[in-house]
Protein backbone atom coordinates (compact mmCIF):
# COMPACT_ATOMS: atom_id res chain seq x y z
CA UNK A 1 0.00 0.00 0.00
CA UNK A 2 2.81 2.37 0.92
CA UNK A 3 4.61 1.67 -2.31
CA UNK A 4 1.49 2.30 -4.35
CA UNK A 5 0.92 5.64 -2.71
CA UNK A 6 4.49 6.69 -3.28
CA UNK A 7 4.18 5.68 -6.90
CA UNK A 8 1.00 7.65 -7.39
CA UNK A 9 2.67 10.63 -5.74
CA UNK A 10 5.52 10.35 -8.18
CA UNK A 11 3.06 10.25 -11.05
CA UNK A 12 1.30 13.38 -9.84
CA UNK A 13 4.66 15.08 -9.48
CA UNK A 14 5.77 14.11 -12.97
CA UNK A 15 2.51 15.24 -14.46
CA UNK A 16 2.73 18.52 -12.64
CA UNK A 17 6.29 19.25 -13.67
CA UNK A 18 5.45 18.52 -17.24
CA UNK A 19 2.47 20.81 -16.94
CA UNK A 20 4.52 23.63 -15.47
CA UNK A 21 7.04 23.42 -18.29
CA UNK A 22 4.20 23.45 -20.78
CA UNK A 23 2.52 26.42 -19.11
CA UNK A 24 5.71 28.42 -18.99
CA UNK A 25 6.20 27.79 -22.66
CA UNK A 26 2.67 28.94 -23.44
CA UNK A 27 2.84 32.02 -21.23
CA UNK A 28 6.25 32.97 -22.52
CA UNK A 29 5.21 32.82 -26.18
CA UNK A 30 1.83 34.45 -25.58
CA UNK A 31 3.39 37.19 -23.59
CA UNK A 32 5.82 38.01 -26.33
CA UNK A 33 2.90 38.25 -28.76
CA UNK A 34 0.83 40.50 -26.58
CA UNK A 35 3.70 42.81 -25.73
CA UNK A 36 4.32 43.27 -29.43
CA UNK A 37 0.73 44.04 -30.31
CA UNK A 38 -0.32 46.11 -27.31
CA UNK A 39 2.26 47.67 -25.08
CA UNK A 40 -0.01 50.17 -23.35
CA UNK A 41 -1.86 47.50 -21.47
CA UNK A 42 0.93 45.81 -19.61
CA UNK A 43 -0.48 42.71 -17.97
CA UNK A 44 2.52 40.96 -16.56
CA UNK A 45 1.61 37.33 -15.74
CA UNK A 46 4.83 36.77 -13.80
CA UNK A 47 4.10 39.72 -11.52
CA UNK A 48 0.49 38.62 -11.11
CA UNK A 49 1.47 35.07 -10.18
CA UNK A 50 4.31 36.15 -7.90
CA UNK A 51 1.98 38.58 -6.19
CA UNK A 52 -0.57 35.81 -5.60
CA UNK A 53 1.78 33.17 -4.30
CA UNK A 54 3.96 35.57 -2.35
CA UNK A 55 3.46 37.05 1.08
CA UNK A 56 2.19 40.59 1.67
CA UNK A 57 1.61 42.99 4.53
CA UNK A 58 -2.12 43.36 3.85
CA UNK A 59 -4.65 40.71 2.90
CA UNK A 60 -5.82 41.85 -0.51
CA UNK A 61 -9.05 40.24 -1.74
CA UNK A 62 -10.11 42.08 -4.90
CA UNK A 63 -10.39 45.50 -6.56
CA UNK A 64 -13.78 46.96 -7.22
CA UNK A 65 -14.13 50.26 -9.12
CA UNK A 66 -10.56 51.28 -8.32
CA UNK A 67 -11.23 50.49 -4.64
CA UNK A 68 -8.98 47.83 -3.25
CA UNK A 69 -10.69 45.56 -0.75
CA UNK A 70 -7.88 44.69 1.64
CA UNK A 71 -7.77 43.48 5.22
CA UNK A 72 -5.19 45.64 7.01
CA UNK A 73 -2.71 43.65 9.09
CA UNK A 74 -0.28 44.83 11.73
CA UNK A 75 3.25 45.68 10.66
CA UNK A 76 5.74 44.96 13.42
CA UNK A 77 9.33 46.08 12.90
CA UNK A 78 12.29 45.62 15.17
CA UNK A 79 14.54 48.58 14.50
CA UNK A 80 17.64 49.92 16.25
CA UNK A 81 15.27 52.19 18.18
CA UNK A 82 13.08 49.36 19.38
CA UNK A 83 9.79 47.88 18.20
CA UNK A 84 7.62 49.86 15.82
CA UNK A 85 4.07 48.77 15.01
CA UNK A 86 1.42 50.21 12.72
CA UNK A 87 -1.33 48.91 10.46
CA UNK A 88 -0.48 48.00 6.89
CA UNK A 89 -3.30 50.25 5.71
CA UNK A 90 -1.03 53.25 6.40
CA UNK A 91 0.84 52.39 3.19
CA UNK A 92 -2.46 52.83 1.30
CA UNK A 93 -1.91 49.64 -0.74
CA UNK A 94 1.39 50.95 -1.98
CA UNK A 95 4.18 48.46 -2.62
CA UNK A 96 6.23 50.66 -4.93
CA UNK A 97 7.95 52.61 -2.12
CA UNK A 98 6.02 55.81 -2.89
CA UNK A 99 4.05 56.15 0.33
CA UNK A 100 6.22 57.07 3.28
CA UNK A 101 4.98 56.26 6.78
CA UNK A 102 6.45 58.21 9.67
CA UNK A 103 6.58 56.50 13.04
CA UNK A 104 8.72 57.43 16.08
CA UNK A 105 10.70 59.78 13.89
CA UNK A 106 11.56 57.05 11.41
CA UNK A 107 10.39 56.84 7.83
CA UNK A 108 9.27 53.52 6.34
CA UNK A 109 8.43 52.50 2.81
CA UNK A 110 7.06 49.27 1.35
CA UNK A 111 9.07 48.22 -1.67
CA UNK A 112 7.64 44.99 -3.10
CA UNK A 113 6.49 43.81 0.35
CA UNK A 114 9.87 44.49 1.92
CA UNK A 115 9.72 47.30 4.46
CA UNK A 116 12.68 49.67 4.36
CA UNK A 117 13.61 52.22 6.94
CA UNK A 118 14.93 55.32 5.19
CA UNK A 119 18.17 56.74 6.46
CA UNK A 120 18.05 59.77 8.71
CA UNK A 121 16.93 62.88 6.85
CA UNK A 122 15.90 61.13 3.63
CA UNK A 123 12.40 61.93 2.37
CA UNK A 124 12.38 59.99 -0.89
CA UNK A 125 13.51 56.57 -1.93
CA UNK A 126 16.42 56.30 -4.32
CA UNK A 127 16.71 53.13 -6.41
CA UNK A 128 19.64 51.81 -8.36
CA UNK A 129 19.24 50.26 -11.83
CA UNK A 130 18.26 46.88 -10.38
CA UNK A 131 15.56 48.46 -8.26
CA UNK A 132 17.42 48.09 -4.97
CA UNK A 133 16.78 50.69 -2.32
CA UNK A 134 19.98 52.69 -1.86
CA UNK A 135 19.14 55.04 0.98
CA UNK A 136 17.50 52.69 3.43
CA UNK A 137 17.91 49.44 5.29
CA UNK A 138 15.40 46.67 5.93
CA UNK A 139 14.75 46.23 9.66
CA UNK A 140 13.84 42.89 11.21
CA UNK A 141 10.27 42.38 10.03
CA UNK A 142 8.05 40.46 12.44
CA UNK A 143 4.79 41.65 10.88
CA UNK A 144 1.61 39.67 11.02
CA UNK A 145 1.62 39.24 7.27
CA UNK A 146 -1.05 37.58 5.15
CA UNK A 147 0.65 34.20 5.63
CA UNK A 148 0.99 34.62 9.39
CA UNK A 149 -2.68 35.57 9.58
CA UNK A 150 -3.51 32.47 7.51
CA UNK A 151 -1.43 30.35 9.91
CA UNK A 152 -3.44 31.81 12.80
CA UNK A 153 -6.66 30.85 11.02
CA UNK A 154 -5.42 27.28 10.48
CA UNK A 155 -4.42 27.06 14.12
CA UNK A 156 -7.80 28.35 15.33
CA UNK A 157 -9.54 25.87 13.03
CA UNK A 158 -7.45 23.04 14.44
CA UNK A 159 -8.26 24.05 18.00
CA UNK A 160 -11.95 24.11 17.13
CA UNK A 161 -11.92 20.76 15.29
CA UNK A 162 -9.86 18.80 17.78
CA UNK A 163 -11.22 20.55 20.83
CA UNK A 164 -14.63 19.38 19.68
CA UNK A 165 -13.36 15.84 19.13
CA UNK A 166 -11.67 15.77 22.54
CA UNK A 167 -14.84 17.07 24.14
CA UNK A 168 -16.77 14.20 22.62
CA UNK A 169 -14.61 11.67 24.46
CA UNK A 170 -15.17 13.46 27.74
CA UNK A 171 -18.85 12.69 27.41
CA UNK A 172 -18.76 9.15 26.09
CA UNK A 173 -16.38 6.47 25.02
CA UNK A 174 -18.54 5.57 22.02
CA UNK A 175 -17.25 6.07 18.50
CA UNK A 176 -18.16 9.60 17.37
CA UNK A 177 -20.37 10.22 14.38
CA UNK A 178 -20.31 12.62 11.45
CA UNK A 179 -17.43 15.07 11.19
CA UNK A 180 -15.84 13.90 14.44
CA UNK A 181 -15.81 10.37 13.11
CA UNK A 182 -13.97 11.50 9.97
CA UNK A 183 -11.36 13.27 12.09
CA UNK A 184 -10.98 10.23 14.33
CA UNK A 185 -10.48 8.07 11.26
CA UNK A 186 -7.68 10.39 10.13
CA UNK A 187 -6.11 10.41 13.60
CA UNK A 188 -6.16 6.62 13.55
CA UNK A 189 -4.80 6.68 9.99
CA UNK A 190 -1.79 8.71 11.19
CA UNK A 191 -1.33 6.33 14.11
CA UNK A 192 -1.81 3.00 12.33
CA UNK A 193 -0.54 3.74 8.81
CA UNK A 194 2.20 6.26 9.50
CA UNK A 195 3.56 6.27 13.07
CA UNK A 196 3.23 2.63 14.12
CA UNK A 197 4.79 0.96 11.05
CA UNK A 198 7.55 3.58 10.58
CA UNK A 199 8.67 4.15 14.15
CA UNK A 200 7.75 0.85 15.75
CA UNK A 201 5.41 -0.29 18.48
CA UNK A 202 7.68 0.71 21.34
CA UNK A 203 8.41 4.34 20.59
CA UNK A 204 5.74 5.66 18.24
CA UNK A 205 3.55 7.06 21.00
CA UNK A 206 6.17 9.67 21.92
CA UNK A 207 6.06 11.18 18.42
CA UNK A 208 2.32 11.04 17.88
CA UNK A 209 1.68 14.67 19.00
CA UNK A 210 4.19 16.02 16.51
CA UNK A 211 3.09 13.78 13.65
CA UNK A 212 -0.60 14.47 14.22
CA UNK A 213 -0.03 18.21 14.49
CA UNK A 214 2.16 18.39 11.42
CA UNK A 215 -0.21 16.21 9.38
CA UNK A 216 -3.33 18.17 10.20
CA UNK A 217 -1.56 21.54 10.02
CA UNK A 218 -0.27 20.85 6.51
CA UNK A 219 -3.51 19.31 5.31
CA UNK A 220 -5.81 22.02 6.66
CA UNK A 221 -3.47 24.81 5.55
CA UNK A 222 -3.20 23.24 2.09
CA UNK A 223 -6.98 23.10 1.81
CA UNK A 224 -7.43 26.67 3.02
CA UNK A 225 -4.78 27.75 0.51
CA UNK A 226 -6.98 26.48 -2.31
CA UNK A 227 -9.73 28.95 -1.44
CA UNK A 228 -9.88 32.01 -3.68
CA UNK A 229 -8.08 34.96 -2.11
CA UNK A 230 -6.39 32.75 0.45
CA UNK A 231 -2.71 32.80 1.34
CA UNK A 232 -0.15 30.36 -0.02
CA UNK A 233 1.21 29.29 3.35
CA UNK A 234 2.52 25.77 2.76
CA UNK A 235 3.88 26.97 -0.59
CA UNK A 236 6.15 29.40 1.21
CA UNK A 237 9.70 28.27 1.80
CA UNK A 238 9.91 29.94 5.24
CA UNK A 239 7.02 27.85 6.53
CA UNK A 240 8.34 24.59 5.12
CA UNK A 241 11.82 25.35 6.46
CA UNK A 242 10.29 25.72 9.91
CA UNK A 243 8.41 22.44 9.56
CA UNK A 244 11.49 20.63 8.22
CA UNK A 245 13.54 21.98 11.12
CA UNK A 246 11.13 20.39 13.60
CA UNK A 247 11.69 17.00 11.99
CA UNK A 248 15.46 17.61 11.99
CA UNK A 249 15.34 18.65 15.65
CA UNK A 250 13.45 15.49 16.57
CA UNK A 251 16.02 13.36 14.71
CA UNK A 252 18.95 15.14 16.40
CA UNK A 253 17.41 14.97 19.87
CA UNK A 254 16.11 11.41 19.71
CA UNK A 255 18.81 9.73 17.62
CA UNK A 256 20.18 6.70 19.48
CA UNK A 257 23.90 6.18 19.99
CA UNK A 258 23.52 3.34 17.56
CA UNK A 259 22.17 5.72 14.95
CA UNK A 260 25.07 8.12 15.39
CA UNK A 261 27.55 5.28 15.15
CA UNK A 262 25.96 4.33 11.86
CA UNK A 263 26.27 7.94 10.70
CA UNK A 264 29.85 8.67 11.75
CA UNK A 265 31.53 5.27 11.77
CA UNK A 266 29.46 2.77 9.83
CA UNK A 267 30.17 -0.72 11.14
CA UNK A 268 30.66 -3.68 8.87
CA UNK A 269 32.54 -1.97 6.03
CA UNK A 270 36.27 -1.63 5.22
CA UNK A 271 38.05 1.03 7.31
CA UNK A 272 39.02 3.34 4.46
CA UNK A 273 35.40 3.64 3.29
CA UNK A 274 34.21 4.75 6.71
CA UNK A 275 35.30 8.44 6.51
CA UNK A 276 33.85 8.78 3.01
CA UNK A 277 30.57 7.27 4.12
CA UNK A 278 30.56 9.45 7.22
CA UNK A 279 30.57 12.56 5.00
CA UNK A 280 27.72 11.15 2.94
CA UNK A 281 25.73 10.16 6.02
CA UNK A 282 26.22 13.51 7.78
CA UNK A 283 25.08 15.28 4.63
CA UNK A 284 22.16 12.84 4.52
CA UNK A 285 21.03 13.84 8.00
CA UNK A 286 20.49 17.39 6.75
CA UNK A 287 19.39 16.60 3.21
CA UNK A 288 16.44 14.54 4.45
CA UNK A 289 14.59 17.47 6.08
CA UNK A 290 15.71 19.77 3.27
CA UNK A 291 14.07 17.39 0.78
CA UNK A 292 10.94 17.48 2.93
CA UNK A 293 10.76 21.25 2.93
CA UNK A 294 11.46 21.61 -0.79
CA UNK A 295 8.95 18.90 -1.73
CA UNK A 296 6.10 20.52 0.17
CA UNK A 297 6.98 24.05 -0.96
CA UNK A 298 7.43 23.06 -4.60
CA UNK A 299 4.30 20.93 -4.85
CA UNK A 300 1.97 23.49 -3.35
CA UNK A 301 3.51 26.44 -5.17
CA UNK A 302 3.44 24.52 -8.45
CA UNK A 303 -0.27 23.85 -8.01
CA UNK A 304 -0.97 27.52 -7.43
CA UNK A 305 1.18 28.54 -10.40
CA UNK A 306 -0.68 26.16 -12.71
CA UNK A 307 -4.09 27.44 -11.68
CA UNK A 308 -2.98 31.08 -11.88
CA UNK A 309 -1.34 30.47 -15.27
CA UNK A 310 -4.52 28.93 -16.64
CA UNK A 311 -6.58 31.86 -15.43
CA UNK A 312 -3.84 34.26 -16.58
CA UNK A 313 -4.13 32.85 -20.12
CA UNK A 314 -7.47 34.64 -20.47
CA UNK A 315 -5.80 38.00 -19.84
CA UNK A 316 -2.66 37.22 -21.79
CA UNK A 317 -4.62 36.30 -24.90
CA UNK A 318 -7.18 39.02 -24.14
CA UNK A 319 -9.95 36.75 -25.23
CA UNK A 320 -12.86 35.73 -23.00
CA UNK A 321 -13.31 32.64 -25.17
CA UNK A 322 -10.11 31.21 -23.72
CA UNK A 323 -12.02 30.92 -20.44
CA UNK A 324 -13.94 28.06 -22.04
CA UNK A 325 -10.73 26.06 -21.97
CA UNK A 326 -8.94 27.71 -19.05
CA UNK A 327 -11.72 27.40 -16.51
CA UNK A 328 -12.36 23.64 -16.94
CA UNK A 329 -8.61 23.07 -16.87
CA UNK A 330 -8.21 25.18 -13.74
CA UNK A 331 -11.13 23.34 -12.19
CA UNK A 332 -9.51 20.02 -13.01
CA UNK A 333 -6.21 21.14 -11.47
CA UNK A 334 -8.07 22.47 -8.42
CA UNK A 335 -9.65 19.05 -7.88
CA UNK A 336 -6.24 17.49 -8.34
CA UNK A 337 -4.91 19.96 -5.76
CA UNK A 338 -7.47 18.63 -3.27
CA UNK A 339 -5.80 15.27 -3.64
CA UNK A 340 -2.32 16.84 -3.54
CA UNK A 341 -3.27 18.74 -0.36
CA UNK A 342 -3.87 15.43 1.39
CA UNK A 343 -1.05 13.61 -0.35
CA UNK A 344 1.60 16.19 0.59
CA UNK A 345 0.43 16.21 4.21
CA UNK A 346 0.65 12.42 4.15
CA UNK A 347 4.07 12.36 2.47
CA UNK A 348 5.55 14.95 4.83
CA UNK A 349 4.26 13.11 7.89
CA UNK A 350 5.18 9.71 6.50
CA UNK A 351 8.76 10.69 5.66
CA UNK A 352 9.16 12.52 8.98
CA UNK A 353 8.03 9.35 10.74
CA UNK A 354 10.35 7.27 8.57
CA UNK A 355 13.39 9.47 9.36
CA UNK A 356 12.53 9.56 13.05
CA UNK A 357 12.02 5.79 12.95
CA UNK A 358 15.47 5.34 11.44
CA UNK A 359 16.99 7.54 14.16
CA UNK A 360 15.37 5.78 17.10
CA UNK A 361 15.61 2.23 15.75
CA UNK A 362 17.27 -0.31 18.02
CA UNK A 363 19.67 -2.62 16.24
CA UNK A 364 19.73 -6.01 17.88
CA UNK A 365 22.32 -7.60 15.64
CA UNK A 366 25.38 -5.83 17.12
Amino acid at each position, binding site marked *: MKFKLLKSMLKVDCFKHFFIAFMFLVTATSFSFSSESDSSKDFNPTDMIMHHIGDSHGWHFFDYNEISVTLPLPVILYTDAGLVAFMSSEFHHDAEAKEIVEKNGMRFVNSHETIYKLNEGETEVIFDEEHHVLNGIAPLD*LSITKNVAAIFISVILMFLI*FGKLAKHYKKSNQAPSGFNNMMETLVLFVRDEIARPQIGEKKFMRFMPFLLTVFFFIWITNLLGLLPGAANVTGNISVT*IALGLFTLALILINGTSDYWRHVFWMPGIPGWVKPILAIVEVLGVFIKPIALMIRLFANITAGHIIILSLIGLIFILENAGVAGISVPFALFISVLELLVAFLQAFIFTMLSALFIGMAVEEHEHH
Partner: protein
Amino acid sequence: MELITPDFGLFFWQIIVFLILVFLLTKFAWKPIMMAVDEREKTINDSLQAADRAKEEMMNLKEDNKKMLNEAREERDQILRDAQTMKKRLMDEATEEAAKKSSEMILKAQATIQSEKKLAIKELKSQVGLLSVKIAEKVLQSELKDEQSQKALVDKMLKEVELN
Protein backbone atom coordinates in the same frame (compact mmCIF):
# COMPACT_ATOMS: atom_id res chain seq x y z
CA MET B 1 14.53 34.25 -6.48
CA GLU B 2 12.10 36.08 -4.24
CA LEU B 3 10.14 32.84 -4.13
CA ILE B 4 12.89 30.76 -2.55
CA THR B 5 14.30 33.44 -0.25
CA PRO B 6 13.21 32.64 3.29
CA ASP B 7 11.55 35.44 5.16
CA PHE B 8 12.59 35.63 8.79
CA GLY B 9 9.33 37.08 10.10
CA LEU B 10 7.20 34.31 8.68
CA PHE B 11 9.73 31.69 9.80
CA PHE B 12 9.73 33.15 13.30
CA TRP B 13 5.94 33.15 13.56
CA GLN B 14 5.68 29.66 12.12
CA ILE B 15 8.10 28.30 14.72
CA ILE B 16 6.37 30.09 17.63
CA VAL B 17 2.86 29.24 16.50
CA PHE B 18 3.70 25.63 15.72
CA LEU B 19 5.34 25.08 19.10
CA ILE B 20 2.30 26.53 20.87
CA LEU B 21 0.04 24.46 18.63
CA VAL B 22 1.87 21.22 19.42
CA PHE B 23 1.90 22.00 23.13
CA LEU B 24 -1.77 22.97 23.43
CA LEU B 25 -3.09 20.28 21.12
CA THR B 26 -1.07 17.63 22.94
CA LYS B 27 -2.50 18.75 26.24
CA PHE B 28 -6.10 19.33 25.22
CA ALA B 29 -6.66 17.15 22.18
CA TRP B 30 -4.14 14.47 21.28
CA LYS B 31 -3.74 13.02 24.77
CA PRO B 32 -7.45 12.73 25.56
CA ILE B 33 -8.20 11.51 22.03
CA MET B 34 -5.45 8.88 21.96
CA MET B 35 -6.31 7.71 25.45
CA ALA B 36 -10.01 7.45 24.66
CA VAL B 37 -9.30 5.61 21.42
CA ASP B 38 -6.91 3.22 23.16
CA GLU B 39 -9.41 2.62 25.90
CA ARG B 40 -12.16 1.96 23.40
CA GLU B 41 -9.95 -0.43 21.47
CA LYS B 42 -9.17 -2.23 24.70
CA THR B 43 -12.86 -2.43 25.53
CA ILE B 44 -13.62 -3.79 22.09
CA ASN B 45 -10.87 -6.39 22.38
CA ASP B 46 -12.05 -7.38 25.84
CA SER B 47 -15.61 -7.62 24.64
CA LEU B 48 -14.57 -9.77 21.72
CA GLN B 49 -12.62 -12.05 24.02
CA ALA B 50 -15.55 -12.24 26.41
CA ALA B 51 -17.82 -13.09 23.52
CA ASP B 52 -15.42 -15.80 22.44
CA ARG B 53 -15.31 -17.19 25.94
CA ALA B 54 -19.10 -17.10 26.21
CA LYS B 55 -19.34 -18.87 22.89
CA GLU B 56 -16.95 -21.55 24.07
CA GLU B 57 -18.86 -21.90 27.30
CA MET B 58 -22.09 -22.21 25.41
CA MET B 59 -20.55 -24.87 23.19
CA ASN B 60 -19.44 -26.73 26.31
CA LEU B 61 -22.88 -26.36 27.79
CA LYS B 62 -24.45 -27.58 24.63
CA GLU B 63 -22.15 -30.57 24.63
CA ASP B 64 -22.99 -31.21 28.26
CA ASN B 65 -26.65 -30.98 27.48
CA LYS B 66 -26.23 -33.38 24.64
CA LYS B 67 -24.34 -35.76 26.88
CA MET B 68 -26.98 -35.50 29.55
CA LEU B 69 -29.72 -36.03 27.05
CA ASN B 70 -27.97 -39.07 25.71
CA GLU B 71 -27.50 -40.41 29.21
CA ALA B 72 -31.14 -39.82 30.02
CA ARG B 73 -32.16 -41.53 26.85
CA GLU B 74 -29.98 -44.47 27.64
CA GLU B 75 -31.35 -44.64 31.14
CA ARG B 76 -34.86 -44.54 29.81
CA ASP B 77 -34.04 -47.32 27.40
CA GLN B 78 -32.49 -49.29 30.24
CA ILE B 79 -35.57 -48.79 32.39
CA LEU B 80 -37.81 -49.82 29.57
CA ARG B 81 -35.72 -52.87 28.91
CA ASP B 82 -35.76 -53.75 32.61
CA ALA B 83 -39.49 -53.28 32.75
CA GLN B 84 -39.88 -55.45 29.70
CA THR B 85 -37.83 -58.25 31.21
CA MET B 86 -39.59 -57.81 34.54
CA LYS B 87 -42.93 -58.06 32.83
CA LYS B 88 -41.85 -61.11 30.98
CA ARG B 89 -40.52 -62.70 34.12
CA LEU B 90 -43.66 -61.85 36.06
CA MET B 91 -45.84 -63.20 33.33
CA ASP B 92 -43.77 -66.30 33.09
CA GLU B 93 -43.92 -66.75 36.81
CA ALA B 94 -47.65 -66.18 36.87
CA THR B 95 -48.18 -68.64 34.07
CA GLU B 96 -46.03 -71.16 35.78
CA GLU B 97 -47.82 -70.72 39.06
CA ALA B 98 -51.15 -70.92 37.36
CA ALA B 99 -50.11 -74.06 35.61
CA LYS B 100 -48.81 -75.48 38.83
CA LYS B 101 -51.93 -74.50 40.71
CA SER B 102 -54.21 -75.89 38.06
CA SER B 103 -52.34 -79.12 37.87
CA GLU B 104 -52.40 -79.31 41.65
CA MET B 105 -56.09 -78.65 41.62
CA ILE B 106 -56.62 -81.31 38.99
CA LEU B 107 -54.61 -83.71 41.01
CA LYS B 108 -56.58 -82.87 44.16
CA ALA B 109 -59.81 -83.18 42.24
CA GLN B 110 -58.73 -86.47 40.89
CA ALA B 111 -57.77 -87.63 44.36
CA THR B 112 -61.11 -86.45 45.73
CA ILE B 113 -62.90 -88.16 42.88
CA GLN B 114 -60.98 -91.31 43.59
CA SER B 115 -61.77 -91.27 47.30
CA GLU B 116 -65.38 -90.31 46.62
CA LYS B 117 -65.55 -93.10 44.15
CA LYS B 118 -64.07 -95.51 46.67
CA LEU B 119 -66.52 -94.34 49.31
CA ALA B 120 -69.38 -94.65 46.87
CA ILE B 121 -68.30 -98.11 45.93
CA LYS B 122 -67.97 -99.00 49.58
CA GLU B 123 -71.45 -97.62 50.24
CA LEU B 124 -72.77 -99.34 47.22
CA LYS B 125 -71.23 -102.57 48.32
CA SER B 126 -72.70 -102.33 51.76
CA GLN B 127 -76.08 -101.40 50.34
CA VAL B 128 -75.83 -104.23 47.88
CA GLY B 129 -74.94 -106.56 50.78
CA LEU B 130 -77.93 -105.36 52.79
CA LEU B 131 -80.22 -105.60 49.82
CA SER B 132 -78.90 -109.00 49.06
CA VAL B 133 -79.54 -110.07 52.61
CA LYS B 134 -83.09 -108.68 52.47
CA ILE B 135 -83.71 -110.27 49.12
CA ALA B 136 -82.23 -113.42 50.37
CA GLU B 137 -84.49 -113.26 53.37
CA LYS B 138 -87.57 -112.74 51.24
CA VAL B 139 -86.52 -115.31 48.73
CA LEU B 140 -85.70 -117.67 51.43
CA GLN B 141 -89.02 -117.08 53.07
CA SER B 142 -90.91 -117.74 49.84
CA GLU B 143 -88.80 -120.29 48.15
CA LEU B 144 -87.60 -122.31 50.91
CA LYS B 145 -90.79 -123.74 51.90
CA ASP B 146 -89.68 -127.16 50.95
CA GLU B 147 -86.58 -128.83 50.90
CA GLN B 148 -86.39 -129.30 47.23
CA SER B 149 -86.89 -125.83 46.34
CA GLN B 150 -84.38 -124.82 48.90
CA LYS B 151 -81.89 -126.91 47.31
CA ALA B 152 -82.69 -125.79 43.80
CA LEU B 153 -82.37 -122.24 44.86
CA VAL B 154 -79.10 -122.73 46.51
CA ASP B 155 -77.82 -124.30 43.40
CA LYS B 156 -79.14 -121.61 41.22
CA MET B 157 -77.72 -118.96 43.49
CA LEU B 158 -74.47 -120.45 43.55
CA LYS B 159 -74.45 -120.64 39.82
CA GLU B 160 -75.30 -116.97 39.54
CA VAL B 161 -72.68 -115.95 42.01
CA GLU B 162 -70.11 -117.77 40.08
CA LEU B 163 -71.24 -116.03 36.90
CA ASN B 164 -70.99 -112.72 38.49
